[in-house]
């Protein structure tokens, strides 16, 4: 119809285009096509998660593409958290001088 000839205006970027911009911005390259595909999949999931956080968040935070967008949550935790905390943290709440603490 008549709408067909109208300029549709700016279109949302395709996922691969967004991923390419991410690679350029954060200087990322992948060793083979399989790795690229895997990272693209992780990137897509993370973007979806960011959108979900935006929808749920009650604060003013904005979530989206970051330097960590091609990492799984587990990889992110391993690379940037402190892994020793993954196990049981030592008891820090014990009162000094209590029976539990033994010697001072």
């Amino acid at each position, binding site marked *: 119809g008549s709408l067909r000839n109208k300029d549709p205006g700016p279109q949302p970027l395709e996922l691969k285009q967004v991923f390419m911009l991410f690679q350029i911005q954060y200087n990322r390259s992948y060793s083979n096509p399989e790795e690229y595909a895997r990272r693209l999949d992780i990137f897509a999931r993370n973007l979806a998660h960011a959108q979900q956080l935006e929808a749920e968040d009650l604060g003013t935070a*904005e979530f989206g593409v970051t330097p960590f967008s091609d990492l799984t949550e587990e990889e992110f935790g391993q690379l940037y958290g402190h892994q020793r905390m993954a196990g049981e943290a030592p008891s820090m709440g014990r009162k000094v001088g209590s029976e539990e603490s033994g010697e001072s």
Partner: protein
Amino acid sequence: LPSSCDWRRLKGIISPIRQQENCNCCWAMATAGNIEALWGIRYNQVVQVSVQELLDCGRCGDGCRGGFVWDAFITVLNNSGLASERDYPFQGDVKPHKCLAKKYKKVAWIQDFIMLQDNEKTIARYLATEGPITVTINMKLLQQYQKGVIKATPATCDPQAVDHSVLLVGFGRSKSVGGRRAEGGASQPHPRRSIPYWILKNSWGAEWGEEGYFRLHRGSNACGITKYPLTARVDLPVKKRPVSCPP
């Protein structure tokens, strides 16, 4: 308790944002930031201390594979202080048997360290009157964070599963009247409100977040911020002088 506090506004207190790169040394960088800030407040001296010394000389070995803030403070006490970042620069890896603590002059040292009560008002009061504090949080929401105040719930960010240490440098209340949705106008407007927040210094470079910083909701133990609030003491309590955090 002041309504806001931001130690970044006092020149020479908060050191530049660090970048931990591929080393899990947030615990050492948060500790270094704490000592630098307290040293600046107490002695009016700008210092940047060696994170690498904390990694190389820590009793637990490979500090790039994680660690605890309290171990960093113990390292500082055992070594009678820390060398400067310039003398003993950050390498991003660890040589556990190559502790060079004795080789360089100490530029800052501490008397002891303490853990505060797990109460956000107590933490805010201490922050405003004494200086920045290290905290350990659940970093899950930081992976996708860009800017703004994160308001988490125990379901979205488990306050018990803390895994990332950062430096608490201030607090305040958002000036925006209305939430993001109200500002954007994309969906139903929210009632006008301001959000109390903490200002935290991260160690993922100045390109990340709000120029290396991020904000967390204050008053709801967001992401477990009250679990391990630790700080050094750079002076004996009896000699304490009142300090004032700029609003």
